[in-house]
């Protein structure tokens, strides 16, 4: 990942967007969306390496993967949702982006739920309760 090239892509895309917006707003929107996707694609490679090293770190201390995998998945879901929301807001569709945010939080809660169940069963085991 080269920060300077990412900044360059963003600025060039901004200039092209401003140039095209009065004549063809749809194409300006497409340019901004494609530039955003490029920047993300470039940034995802270091993220992959980071997640890989986190995985090896957690595996070395013997924590089962079903405890921390939901966290990584939720980070991914929120990233996708935020990007899509930003693209919708760029296109001027606030309502769509609000609905998308709602769907994203529902998906995160669904992913969290096994963890909460795990925690509650652990606590009830420790306290000797019958659930």
């Amino acid at each position, binding site marked *: 990942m080269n920060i300077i090239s990412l900044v360059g892509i963003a600025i060039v895309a901004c200039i092209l967007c401003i140039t095209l917006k009065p004549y063809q707003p*749809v194409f300006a929107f497409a340019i901004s969306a494609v530039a955003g996707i490029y920047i993300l694609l470039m940034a995802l490679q270091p993220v992959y390496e980071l997640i890989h090293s986190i995985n090896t770190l957690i595996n070395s201390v013997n924590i089962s993967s079903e405890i921390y995998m939901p966290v990584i998945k939720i980070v991914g879901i929120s990233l996708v949702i935020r990007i899509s929301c930003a693209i919708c807001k760029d296109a001027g569709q606030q309502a769509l982006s609000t609905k998308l945010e709602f769907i994203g939080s529902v998906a995160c809660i669904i992913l969290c739920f096994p963890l909460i169940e795990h925690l509650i069963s652990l606590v009830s085991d420790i306290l000797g309760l019958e659930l």
Partner: protein
Amino acid sequence: MQIDLIFKIAAVGILVAVFNQLLVRSGREEQALMTTLAGLVVVMMILVQEIANLFQMMKSVFGF
């Protein structure tokens, strides 16, 4: 990274804008509309491919 896609979309946009102006000035509004639609379809093809690419990458990175 094939960064030239951004320039490609910009070029399509500028060409479509110019053709649109020319056709509207010469009194062919419906052909101007058709030009805009064709350019839009081309750009949409590029955009959808890139979005699919991004989501595929995200799936592999975050382990869905």
